[in-house]
């Protein structure tokens, strides 16, 4: 496969997202913080970086649709609504902003006392959660906003709900199936389950090693389970309903991001030594590879090289045909899988397929 390199940011990427169909990541100037997700149809890809604009790209050829200008600080996160009409972004300038995808127009700005590290729409796009940083005497919070999925509608200023994380600040959060729960990952390595309507804490579970921050949380397609990536060098597959750790994927480097691939039962992990440690630790190549694991058998099945800095974010194409990764090096790399990727099955899987085929006839 030939990756497409997108260089639209001047600094490290923070997140990439694909419009419901997946987006391809493009290089940003500077480090890429986040490769936004592909949108639901997988044709658009959004990326945010530590510079001050969001990029939208066409996933199939890497063409840049445009940039969303207006943030005054590094942008940490972006999310696309399920209808691919608007995107929300969270930034170090202490705002969450809403943008019209088609024109790049700023629709709404919400101000907060501290930086916003993560935003996510719920399944039907009526609500948006934002994770705010713990800083300057303010505790970390998860705020929920009502969203009208209409470009011309007046958005409400009111916060529907605020969850205060008084023990350990939340670093990532997301909506489960039917917006029933809000799941948050914390700085101390634990995962919490809150009620999606009232914000009551049901459950807090130390999924990862103590005080090893959870760096990413991404859902499978029906949002019944999710994958967490942590600085403790593992990624875990956890069910949303009872926070049961179903699978563990050990790696040899701190992880910054993890995603679940549709179509094939794989997960992709991204990480690498932190940029600030690269010169002070081993001179060996920094493990800046995307790692593929089999979702069920937990075996590592391959790696994809390319970045020359740690991977800050990985996003899978919702159609299952590719994935995108964004790195500290400022590039988004969009990959379309080859035939070999789709052909790969375990022996037991093949036997089962054959058995099912035999029964069918």
């Amino acid at each position, binding site marked *: 496969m030939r990756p497409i390199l997108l260089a639209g940011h001047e600094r490290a990427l923070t997140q990439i997202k694909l419009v419901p*169909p997946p987006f391809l990541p493009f290089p940003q100037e500077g480090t890429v913080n986040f490769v936004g997700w592909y949108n639901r149809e997988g044709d658009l890809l959004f990326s945010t970086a530590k510079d001050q604009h969001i990029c939208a790209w066409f996933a199939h050829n890497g063409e840049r649709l445009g940039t969303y200008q207006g943030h005054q600080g590094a942008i940490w996160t972006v999310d696309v609504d399920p209808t691919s009409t608007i995107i929300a972004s969270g930034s170090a300038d202490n705002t969450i902003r809403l943008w019209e995808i088609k024109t790049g127009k700023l629709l709404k700005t919400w101000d907060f006392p501290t930086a916003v590290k993560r935003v996510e729409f719920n399944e039907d796009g009526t609500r948006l959660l934002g994770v705010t940083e713990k800083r300057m005497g303010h505790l970390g919070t998860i705020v929920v906003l009502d969203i009208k999925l209409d470009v011309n509608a007046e958005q409400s200023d009111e916060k529907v709900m605020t969850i205060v994380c008084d023990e350990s600040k939340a670093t990532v959060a997301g909506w489960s199936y039917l917006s029933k729960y809000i799941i948050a990952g914390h700085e101390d390595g634990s995962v919490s389950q809150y009620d999606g309507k009232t914000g009551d804490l049901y459950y807090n579970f130390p999924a990862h090693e103590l005080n090893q921050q959870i760096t990413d949380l991404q859902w499978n397609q029906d949002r019944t389970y999710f994958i967490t990536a942590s600085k403790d060098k593992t990624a875990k597959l956890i069910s949303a309903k009872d926070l049961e750790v179903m699978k563990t994927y050990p790696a040899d480097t701190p992880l910054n991001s993890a995603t679940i691939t549709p179509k094939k039962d794989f997960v992709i992990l991204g990480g690498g030594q932190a940029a600030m440690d690269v010169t002070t630790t081993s001179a060996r190549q920094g493990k800046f590879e995307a790692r593929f694991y089999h979702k069920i058998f937990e075996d590592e099945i391959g790696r994809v090289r390319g970045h020359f800095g740690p991977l800050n974010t990985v996003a899978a194409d919702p159609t299952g045909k590719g994935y995108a990764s964004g790195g500290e090096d400022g590039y988004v790399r969009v990959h379309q899988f080859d035939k070999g990727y789709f052909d790969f099955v375990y022996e037991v899987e093949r036997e089962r397929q054959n058995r099912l085929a035999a029964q069918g006839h």
Partner: protein
Amino acid sequence: MAAQTKHDWADDDDLDEISTDLPPPQKIQNKDGTTTIIEYRFNDEGQKVKTTRRIRYITHREVVNPRVAERKGWAKFGQSAKDGPGPAHDTTTVGENIIFRPSTNWRKDARDESKDPNAQAMKDKLRDKKVKCRICNGEHFTARCPYKDTMAPIGEAGAGGSADVAAGLPEESAGAGAAGAGKKGSYVPPALRGAGGAAGAGAGERMGGKYGERDDLATLRVTNVSEMAEENELRDMFERFGRVTRVFLAKDRDTGMAKGFAFISFADRGDAVKACEKMDGFGFRHLILRVEFAKKAQ
């Protein structure tokens, strides 16, 4: 074309720099279905650059969601507002081709390729080696020898060293021999070669004098070896008869294929005699080996 031939070739540069208008881009349809596109532009130094590209257009039809199709028609905005249709060169490039084929034992595969051959070959080479000082034959490196300032190396010490040379050198130079005979040991000025050569029983001016020493003792020459043979295989075959100190399989420098002959040195001459009898005429990889004692090079 005709106009150009009238110029002296020396004028061409000047003409190019003066003319500010570029020839129009050309598109030529080739018979084989490809299109040749010739474009001209000025580079950063103001030189005219001609770019010729041959392109084959392949129409790939894909049915997409109507909303996706609609989005493809959207106007660009923000920093991309001025970009034309298609990916812009400053933001989008195509990376190197990456071969990614998932596999359950990819880790083992990778290790087999990188570490194992080298480590294994090195182990094989060193299996029978001991560190031996060239000055006093002690078990230390020559550089560490306590006598290194007071004694000359054995090989240069005169006739008395003759036996030691025969015993010591094969081991020392085995590595070099296996590495492809590229290394001939350290340089000896012609004036001193006589002395060393005298010790080496008349090896004389020959550069490879050292090699001659061990050959006649317990070294077999094996010919009619298959091109696909490996040193390890030969070692395995001959080790049945006794301790093998050196296996040298001549290989083509470019292709890495065996050239068809090899030398096997034994520690003990009796083993070599046995091996010579048994292995001569032995069938190996569709070929019948011919084994004989290596002749002393003249």
